[in-house]
């Protein structure tokens, strides 16, 4: 309970600032509309108007929540869960690409880390490239990945998953290398006195020692995967997915739609990271870590 109060305080502060900002940002439009109709707006009328415009510059929180409900819960109640206006439908499109990308990225990250730790040549060569790969703006490389893959007949989920993997492998490589190298000299010497093989050292010492590092990386990687999947939907004129939803929203000035898609993405990310956190807790408890 103690940890809930500070969080709620912060949330309340954000909501207050948000409403205030909505007044400021939408007031101009409200005044212009009023002037065109030849009416003078009082303060309360102005505030009421800025919080209920159809296409506000900044939609008020309750407008976003309403849109969120209309495009999720209400759709389910209406039996239109998978309609094109449902955020559940778009969310699922993005989620499937995210999960595929996360799986590819994490696996690649773990394998690269194992290679880096066990092979001197890979240690020298792979890491600089991995770092370089992250300095390229993803927005620049995403369209190229999609165009190249499209030209060899691959489209839909896979290109998005690859962009997503491109972002998520990196934190896993970094964390996993650190984790696999966590055992100190004495621990490695001990195994040497047992004449343990390289494989035994890996399975019995390095891998278990890396588990806490791995989970930290996986959480970052999962968030990066979601960003990758959304970015993968932006430059292609995709019509499905949360990214597409944001894009069409911006074409037609549907700010409420953009914001609700943003919120859906944030909720999705929080949920996914939360699930990894729960698996981490269970796993570490099974490994006897003090809780």
């Amino acid at each position: 309970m103690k940890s809930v109060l500070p969080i709620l305080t912060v949330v309340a502060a954000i909501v207050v600032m948000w409403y205030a900002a909505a007044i400021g940002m939408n007031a101009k439009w409200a005044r212009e509309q009023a002037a065109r109709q030849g009416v003078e707006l009082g303060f309360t009328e102005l505030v009421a108007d800025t919080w209920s415009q159809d296409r506000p510059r900044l939609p008020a929180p309750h407008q976003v929540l309403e849109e969120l409900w209309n495009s999720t819960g209400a759709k389910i109640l209406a039996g239109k869960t998978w309609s094109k206006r449902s955020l559940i439908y778009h969310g699922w499109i993005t989620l499937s690409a995210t999960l595929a990308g996360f799986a590819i990225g994490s696996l690649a990250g773990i394998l690269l880390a194992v290679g880096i730790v066990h092979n001197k040549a890979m240690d020298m060569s792979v890491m600089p490239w991995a770092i370089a790969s992250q300095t390229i703006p993803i927005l620049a490389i995403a369209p190229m990945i999609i165009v190249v893959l499209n030209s060899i007949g691959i489209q839909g989920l896979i290109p998005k998953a690859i962009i997503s993997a491109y972002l998520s492998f990196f934190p896993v490589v970094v964390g996993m290398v650190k984790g696999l190298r966590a055992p100190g000299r004495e621990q490695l010497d001990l195994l040497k006195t047992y004449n343990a093989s390289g494989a035994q050292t890996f399975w019995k010492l390095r891998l278990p020692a890396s588990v806490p590092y791995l989970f930290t990386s996986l959480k970052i990687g999962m968030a990066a995967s979601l960003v990758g999947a959304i970015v993968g939907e932006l430059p292609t004129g995709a019509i499905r997915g949360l990214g597409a939803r944001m894009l069409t929203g911006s074409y037609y000035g549907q700010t409420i739609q953009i914001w609700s898609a943003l919120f859906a993405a944030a909720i999705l990310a929080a949920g996914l990271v939360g699930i990894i956190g729960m698996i981490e807790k269970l796993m570490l408890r099974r490994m006897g870590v003090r809780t």
Partner: protein
Amino acid sequence: MVSQPVIRAENLDLTFQTNDGPVHALKGVNLTIDKGDFVSFIGPSGCGKTTFLRVVAALEHPTGGSISVAGMSPDEARRKRMYGYVFQAAGLYPWRTIRGNIKLPLEIMGMPRDEQEERVERVLELVDLKGFGKKYPWQLSGGMQQRASIARALAFDAEILLMDEPFGALDEIVRDHLNEQLLKLWAATDKTIGFVTHSIPEAVYLSTRIVVMSPRPGRITDVIENPLPRERPLDIRDTPEFLEVAHRVREGLRAGHAYDD
């Protein structure tokens, strides 16, 4: 019983090349350790006592002279798992129970499951940790953790036990208790023990022989035969005989230091 050498070092040199020039960790070390001996290595930091133990364990390789362990090269002895090594830090795996930790070397050696269980039971009893097998390391005190690490080194029944300041991080009361237990264990198993320590009373109380070393270059300055009987209650440390040996060790350490300052 005719004593046979288990460890024999002749004119052993080990020089580390560092950025500040060569460091002579060991120079001209001659030493023979017989089967069943309990040999302590004592001396200030940098005298090469740990390095010597690591050379015996083939964790370091000498740059000159010769050394044999159980009649073979240290590396062969390591491959044949002739020794158990106890480090200063217990180094138990936090993700394994005490039982799992003791099993680690047995798993690596590919021992059958039921034999593993049997051996774990036996050494747990030997170090007085019966009933703690299912605990995780963090649930045990520092002294108990170190006992578990000794049990781990005993589990595969190597002939030689190499101990590098195993009780260095523990308080004196716990240390006394563990010293007593270690002597009992040694009497019960008849192992050859090499033991590195900073503590004069510990060295005198435990060993049959005390090797006094001094630094720059790391070398042996005195080897003292301990006349105390093998059966040693803790209060033997108040007898004149004990104090005499301790005095000689102290003298040896002081002589080694005369080169300095």
